């Protein structure tokens, strides 16, 4: 299961003609570190990494803020149409994005957002899944805690900020890693929305790299390794929450 990754790492340190040498030389005798220098100049990889990081961070922050904010109202406040509104969220969780990606694209185009990062932010930052996940977690926090704070004169915003958010770190971590991984790895979204090179994300960038330098295997592998590292780091740091999150909520991909 790990073999493809090891092969990838090993190939990223080889000359193109050695990549397919058989039997496989797992540890290159003369590791070619130059591949990792060359990839940054062959295509604007730095820019792609920057674009992806920018999108991922903005989407994740927006997602965490707005989802936990809305989830607080759904879990702890009473107001008319609460269940109807929540049902609207639930109903769309099972709806594949691919079903409405075309009208969404047309809408963004009408709004003048095609070929902007804002389009991708808008389409990824407000998910039903985020609201659902946070609400489920808030339901498990006793109401008495909020009541006590209200009697002490704390505003609803204060309760959300000072009580709910600090208590919901596990849920926030789960949502962070899910959003981070999904946005970082997203392919179809950027493929549809971003045609200008200077806006592209790393996934689309690697795809471009492959088409332009299809024979330079060592370089392609090095670029792929670069695309994997940030996700690997975030995953290893927050792994415990990720695994708990999947185990407890199931969660769709």
């Amino acid at each position: 299961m790990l073999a493809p990754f090891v092969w990838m790492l090993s190939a990223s340190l080889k000359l193109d003609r050695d990549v397919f040498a058989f039997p496989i030389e797992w540890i290159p005798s003369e590791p070619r570190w130059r591949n990792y220098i060359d990839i940054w100049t062959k295509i604007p990889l730095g820019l792609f990494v920057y674009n992806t990081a920018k999108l991922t961070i903005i989407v994740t922050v927006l997602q965490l803020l707005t989802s936990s904010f809305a989830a607080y109202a759904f879990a702890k406040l009473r107001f008319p149409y609460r269940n109807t509104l929540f049902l609207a969220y639930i109903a769309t969780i099972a709806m594949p994005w691919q079903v409405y990606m075309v009208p969404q694209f047309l809408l963004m185009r009408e709004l003048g957002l095609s070929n902007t990062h804002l389009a991708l932010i808008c389409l990824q930052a407000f998910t039903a899944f985020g609201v659902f996940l946070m609400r489920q977690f808030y339901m498990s926090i006793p109401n008495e805690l909020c009541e006590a704070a209200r009697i002490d004169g704390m505003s609803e915003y204060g309760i959300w900020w000072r009580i709910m958010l600090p208590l919901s770190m596990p849920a926030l971590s789960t949502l962070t890693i899910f959003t981070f991984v999904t946005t970082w790895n997203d392919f179809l979204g950027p493929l549809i929305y971003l045609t200008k090179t200077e806006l592209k994300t790393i996934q689309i960038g690697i795809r471009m790299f492959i088409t332009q330098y299809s024979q330079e295997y060592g370089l392609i592998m090095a670029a792929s390794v670069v695309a994997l590292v940030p996700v690997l780091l975030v995953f290893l740091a927050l792994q415990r929450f990720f695994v708990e999150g999947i185990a407890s909520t199931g969660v769709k991909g």
Partner: protein
Amino acid sequence: MKARPRAPVSKRWRKVQRLLIAYSFIAPNFIGFAVFTLLPIVCAFLLAFMHWDGNNPIEFAGLDNFWKLFSDRAFKDAFWNTIIYTGFTVPLTLACSLGLAVLLNQKIFGRNFFRTVAFFPYVASLVAVAVVWNMIFNPEFGPVNMILYELGIDPKNLPGWAADSDWAMVTIIMFSVWKMMGYFMVIYLAGLQGISGELYEAAEIDGANAWQKFWRITLPQLGPTTFFVSVMLTIQSFKVFDQIYMITQGGPGTSTLVLVYHIYNEAFISWDLGYSSMVALVLFLLVLTITIVQFRWVEGKDGDTA
């Protein structure tokens, strides 16, 4: 400052205030969600009954797009390929993830390391791993065919993998199973931890062997998990796109063309937006069917589970 009993007018004002506060919590997310998700969903249904190329005026098409489904060879292929892909990917992923979970639930050396390793393909960027997969399964120089050759398989009989219409779908399915099984392994691990140890102890006293324990205790106890996992996997398989775009582009011929790929082609290559929405509607109906089956099943089970 003590609160005093207030006049009815101010009571009503407080009620309005409470309402405004509640809606202010919902608004930031809901407005984005309504504009960028709910509205496009509604439009998707309307668009399926329209003719539109995205530039010229939109026209009402009635059922034209629906009838076109039946005369469209590519749609037929995409539909059946999606079903075939799902039919193989779901059971294979189930079996592999369950096997892994049972294995990594034992107290073996370094199991946390192996769990992380098994999970990693799932978080790894699909584009990056698809590139590796393509190279490993390269029919001419890839290590997989090299090994098969060393094992004595006639070069003429070596599979062409992604380049061969008989093997392209097999390549995609293997890739998907490898990519997804770690994720479902985690769900199975959670399920396994929920099985009471007493059941196994009782079985041991009765002299059951490992195989019997697996068939008679583990598997039945994991029934709800398996059902849940297979529903999720089925829905996910209906939506397959990225690996196909990266590895085979739907080909050779139409051997790996699937529904989402057809939607993508019709919309963004042919700019037949109405028809692509009609194909999307078919995808929606497939997912809806699975979801309804799931709900029925959960309702039926409501009596004995929480």
